[in-house]
């Protein structure tokens, strides 16, 4: 199977021929940063297009189909539009925090995006506490949302932000607990090792019933953390116009929009990495020819395929169910999802011990 570490090592050696080690590090960091930000923007555009198409198809429409073949350049046109729009000056808003909030949300999702293993040998940073890092940095976004709500000086934004805070803090628990079940199974928090351990069969198959339960719990909790779908009451448009980003315009709104879609991608990518084997091809023990054939499909295709499958699941859920009330939302988390996750960890521990 092709490993991207060949490419990265080649670039590293090439740079070392001409530059000193400090400059090499600087150039490599810049390269990784530019690549990640580029990939971030491209994935966001793909996701927005996908969302609009899937939503349209579920409502018996066609969706964007005018700009380019099948409308694939619609989101590019939208991006140019949003870049050219005016940034509306908000009177009596806390301007420093107002500007900062959009970056907080964006930085949180870029930080998570950077630590994902995209393909074999294609991972920017490989922490030994990878899972912990992902959970920690992805929940930094709630700070940005609370700041946005507070600094906008508007009742809609503050209600939206408070709801979002309550929601994210509660669903973070289920999210962490369901990932913990996989950490119990794998015995490591390093993402590269987690992927390597799934070489024989993915964790969702290795972990029997508890892994399946954890997978669905993670999908639900992660979906709630992205403030989407039936859990989108921080931006419930019928009551709060647009929730915490009501007062934002132009590219600042674009940042929130981008971060929302990328959070969806990140949740799907974490689910794919932790449960569906990341970039690891589908291997069935004993079927040597089948395993060998599967190895010919590039690892990046495996990763993106699994991720977009999870993204499709999220879209499917979003366009199927009506929005919850805040008490229903919190009841669902504290009375149903979290107990299930806790029992599930116990089950997983029993499974691992046996």
């Amino acid at each position, binding site marked *: 199977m092709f490993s991207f570490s060949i490419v990265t090592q080649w670039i590293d050696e090439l740079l070392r021929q001409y530059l000193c080690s400090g400059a090499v590090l600087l150039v490599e960091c810049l390269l990784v940063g530019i690549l990640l930000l580029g990939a971030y923007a491209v994935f966001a555009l793909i996701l927005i297009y996908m969302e609009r198409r899937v939503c349209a*198809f579920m409502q018996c429409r*066609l969706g964007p189909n005018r700009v380019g073949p099948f409308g694939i350049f619609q989101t590019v046109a939208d991006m140019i539009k949003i870049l050219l729009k005016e940034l509306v000056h908000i009177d009596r808003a806390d301007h420093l925090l107002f500007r900062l909030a959009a970056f907080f949300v964006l930085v949180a999702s870029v930080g998570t995006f950077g630590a994902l293993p995209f393909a074999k040998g294609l991972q920017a940073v490989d922490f030994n506490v990878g899972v912990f890092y992902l959970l920690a940095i992805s929940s930094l976004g709630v700070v940005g949302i609370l700041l946005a709500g507070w600094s906008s000086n508007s009742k809609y934004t503050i209600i939206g932000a408070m709801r979002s805070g309550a929601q994210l803090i509660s669903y973070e628990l289920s999210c962490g607990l369901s990932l913990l079940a996989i950490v119990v199974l794998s015995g490591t928090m390093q993402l590269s090792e987690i992927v390597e351990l799934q070489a024989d069969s993915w964790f969702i198959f290795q972990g029997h019933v508890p892994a399946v339960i954890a997978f669905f719990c993670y999908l639900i909790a992660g979906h709630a953390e992205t403030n989407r779908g039936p859990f989108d009451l921080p931006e419930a448009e019928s009551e709060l116009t647009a929730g915490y980003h009501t007062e934002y315009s132009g590219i600042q709104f674009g940042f929130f929009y981008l971060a929302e879609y990328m959070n969806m991608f990140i949740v799907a990518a974490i689910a794919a990495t932790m449960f569906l084997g990341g970039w690891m091809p589908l291997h069935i023990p004993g079927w040597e020819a089948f395993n060998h054939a599967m190895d010919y499909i590039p690892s990046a295709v495996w990763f993106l395929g699994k991720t977009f499958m999870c993204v499709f699941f999220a879209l499917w859920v979003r366009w199927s169910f009506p929005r919850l009330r805040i008490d229903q939302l919190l009841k669902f988390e504290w009375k149903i999802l979290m107990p299930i996750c806790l029992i599930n960890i116990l089950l997983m521990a029993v499974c691992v011990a046996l």
Partner: protein
Amino acid sequence: MFRYIKEIVWGIYRLLQGMYISMLNMLRPKVTEKYPENRKTKVHFERFRGLLTMPHNAQNEHKCTACALCMMSCPNGTIRVVSKKVTDEATGKEKKVLDRYLYDIGSCTFCDLCTTACPQDAIAWTPFFEHTVYTRSKLVKQLNREGSTLEVKTKTE
């Protein structure tokens, strides 16, 4: 405890039902019409009111007797029937004949009052709907053709 588990299972069942229905919708053929591409094959439903026309037969004859009932029934003054007096050479009598039938689509609300008022069935709707022009004066259309005459009714008794 039993009720709690029952509630969860029942809830999952209902959620799956909803997801099944949205998946059915996704796989269903779409109702959206791709307009400029399908304008050749576009089929309108029978009663679609696009443009008021005056049907002419092969001899360039219409049925309008210039009675102006349509002009009087029109709430917007969209229709103007201009008639002229022509003396019949055989009998020497003066007769009212349609000169110009002017229809201003710019003020038409497609209410169908004119065609219901017409006793001769001289005017009818066609499904043509691409009315966009660059000047307002082009919206006023003359419905009777040049040199057209009244269709002579043959008595069938």
